[in-house]
């Protein structure tokens, strides 16, 4: 059971992220929830490709030739950069919303419009 500890961590982190996205009334905290969900997905991808006793898939002075799967790591690299871009875009939206409405509560943003 405890051999699956990375997957349990993935479930807990994703649960915290979804809780922050659904429950919180502050846009910065919603962005933090999105970022936590991205981190959980990245950890899930990397731990899917782990092979017991394997080393990193790099041949330069490698200790052995039993290596972990390289494809999930490459796609996780792509996912990380896209996550950074999405986070930056959401945070700039938060800055503009706070400048225009003076608040970060999404309910008040709708009411103050006019």
């Amino acid at each position, binding site marked *: 059971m405890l*051999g699956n500890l990375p997957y349990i961590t993935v479930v807990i982190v994703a*649960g915290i992220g979804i809780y922050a996205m659904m429950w919180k009334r502050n846009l910065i905290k919603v962005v933090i929830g999105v970022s936590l969900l991205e981190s959980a997905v990245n950890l899930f991808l990397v731990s899917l490709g782990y092979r*017991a006793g394997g080393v990193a898939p*790099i*041949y330069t002075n490698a200790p052995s030739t039993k290596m972990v799967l*390289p*494809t999930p790591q490459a796609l996780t690299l*792509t996912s990380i950069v896209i996550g950074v871009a999405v986070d930056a875009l959401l945070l700039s939206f938060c800055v503009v919303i706070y400048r225009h409405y003076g608040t970060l509560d999404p309910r008040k943003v709708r009411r103050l419009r006019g």
Partner: protein
Amino acid sequence: MRKLLIIASIAIFIAFFLYVAINPGDFGKPAGRHLVFGYPKYTDMDDYFITHGQIFSAANNIVTSIVFDFRGYDTLGEATVLFAAVMGIASVLRKLRRDEE
């Protein structure tokens, strides 16, 4: 009502995925329908990359040879996404008109 709905949905989510993650099943065996950490099920493509990556793309780092050679289209789309995000930020945070400053 809304709070109850949120709590119920999060509880269902966590319970379902914890069941999949914790399920001991046939631990330690490479095949089977359970998720076992450290024993991936299908490894043919990755074994091919590990054994042939040094011959085809002449690089020691297999991850880099996948990112830029075997799966270059993914990297092209990812670079385009980063470029589009930067353009979006530049158009959102642009300088306002002169009279508004």
